[in-house]
């Protein structure tokens, strides 16, 4: 029985966060024993409302060696979602965010190696690509990070690859493209575009769009990102790989705002402001590698994902 128990024990770092908490819910639904390591710096208690009685919660930082060791002990798989997840914040505080996003990730990998974890799935970021000349963005393109955050996430995935090559720890880095959905915090000063637009429409306050709004993004509904994690945790050929995770279609911010305006019934015009330095112009993922190595295919269309997100922010 011991073997079976550890085979299904999973650690989610940042499990109280937006993506992490959805992953926790899914792992529980799949019958796993779930441990969460979170310091609640950006994670929220309410995200774990349903899961809390069923999980083992360790309150601590990924920078605290003792907490990380306690969290990884006896786990078969680690989903490393914890991070300071913000480009502007990394620009404001490059040193502090580096300590969490790079040193913390390294500590998770090193501890996982020492405690006999089989596989680590790492939340990497599409921001690693920077402005590529051609679309879609393919994993074989060189990384050109444009912000400390992008560099930190990129460093994390290179560490993942090294840990696989040097120590045989199975690692998979998933480059997320603009994940959105319920529980994504609309209040934060660094809120992502979708919750920001929805909140604005629900409150009747015109949202700001930086630039002409014709910049495009590949938006991923959170349950698809979670599915990719589940697939990455067991796909035999994925160890050591970097893999795009996306919705597989792109929408401009103007189109996005129009869709949200229609769905919320708001009658607003966006305020266009000057483009932000460091913002990527266009983004679209190639999903060939995800399909090939993981059998991944996005299931939730943008409009439907928006409907679910709007509903959750209304409630």
């Amino acid at each position, binding site marked *: *029985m011991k*073997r*079976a*128990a550890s*085979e*299904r024990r999973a650690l989610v770092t940042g499990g109280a966060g937006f993506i992490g908490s*959805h992953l926790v*819910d*899914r792992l*529980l*639904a*799949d*019958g796993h024993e779930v441990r969460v390591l979170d310091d609640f710096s950006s994670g929220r208690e309410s995200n774990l409302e*349903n899961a809390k009685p*069923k999980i083992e919660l360790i309150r601590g930082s990924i920078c605290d060696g003792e907490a990380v060791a306690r969290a990884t002990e006896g786990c078969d798989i680690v989903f490393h979602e914890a991070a300071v997840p913000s480009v502007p914040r990394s620009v404001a505080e490059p040193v502090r965010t580096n300590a969490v996003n790079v040193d913390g990730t390294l500590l998770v990998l090193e501890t996982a190696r020492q405690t006999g974890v089989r596989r680590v799935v790492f939340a990497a970021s599409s921001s690693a690509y920077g402005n590529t000349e051609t679309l879609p963005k393919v994993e074989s393109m060189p990384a050109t990070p444009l912000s400390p955050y992008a560099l930190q996430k990129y460093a994390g995935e290179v560490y993942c690859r090294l840990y696989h090559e040097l120590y045989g720890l199975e690692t998979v880095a998933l480059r997320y493209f603009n994940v959105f*959905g*319920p529980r994504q915090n609309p209040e934060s000063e660094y809120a992502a575009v979708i919750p920001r637009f929805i909140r604005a429409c629900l409150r009747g306050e015109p949202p700001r769009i930086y630039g002409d709004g014709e910049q495009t993004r590949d938006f991923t*509904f*959170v*349950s698809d990102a*979670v599915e990719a994690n589940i697939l990455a945790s*067991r796909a035999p050929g994925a160890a050591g790989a970097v893999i795009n995770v996306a919705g597989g279609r792109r929408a401009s911010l103007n189109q996005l705002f129009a869709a949200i305006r229609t769905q919320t019934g708001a009658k607003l015009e966006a305020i266009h402001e000057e483009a932000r330095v460091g913002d990527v112009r266009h983004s679209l993922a190639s999903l060939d590698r995800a399909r090939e190595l993981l*059998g991944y*295919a996005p*299931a*939730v*269309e943008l*409009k*439907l994902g928006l*409907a*679910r997100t709007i*509903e*959750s922010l209304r*409630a």
Partner: protein
Amino acid sequence: MNPGSARVLVTGGAGFIGSTLVDRLLADCRDITVLDSFDPYYPEVEKQANLYAALQNPRCRLHRGDIRDPKVLEQVLSRGGFGAIVHLAGLAGVRPSLERPAHYADVNVRGTACVLEAAVRAGVPHIVFASSSSVYGERSEGPFRETDPVERPISPYAATKRACELIAHSFHYAHGITITCARIFTAYGPRQRPDLAIRRFAERMLAGKPVPVFGDGSSVRDFTYVHDLVDGLVRALNQPLGFSILNFGAGRTCSVLEVVRLLEKTLGISAQIEWLPRQIGDVSRTFADISAARQALGYAPKTPLDVGIGHFAQWLKERQ
């Protein structure tokens, strides 16, 4: 309504497979209405326990009612916004269907027609229906393919499931709703129905009672771990395929006697076997060819039988 809409009605959602599916759909950010009659085939308290966690979630609602009552369905669906129905409600069990064939036909066949009729009326565009491997009848060879003839069911239960598939096709043809019929091969795992083999064996072993094995124990089943099955059902839900019938099995077989041996190893108890004559209505083998579901949906069961039985045994011990 778009088939990918968040809101899903799960009939029979308090049962073994239904409640496991509901937990998964909630984790997928869906919004769930469960319709269940709490048929006394097995104790209601088990079904309440199955749904306990799901009902803590504000995105999950429970309606108690019978699928054969058009008013109930109309009321449930009147909330609007349903993108799909997963229709799992029905009378289960091959052997009891021999005792009450008319009742089985009424609940399963007429009940399914009622669900489909209500779906069309309410504009729900997509249905996933729980059919059964028993439709293949008595077969000496395998694996079973969806294109194989299925004209010779050997139990009323199997016949009702096949009849439902045929009615489903007629609704697809007449009304254009998309329907995937999932032919389910012997699901097992946590929350398993108390009358099903693995659970019955385990409980009798833990109680020190003999384990009844029908026939010579050589009959084989394609045992499907419930989370693998649910993963397939979610894929069928997310991806309408017009009208289609797909096998959901593990794609490998195990004899009943081997299952007893695995349980002995897992529970650390040696079983005393009570040999009983083969039962009418029970097929001697089921074995799924799962290549169609793999190709159409990416369905990929992953749980080895010993691992699945380990998880099941742990659940059984925890609930005792």
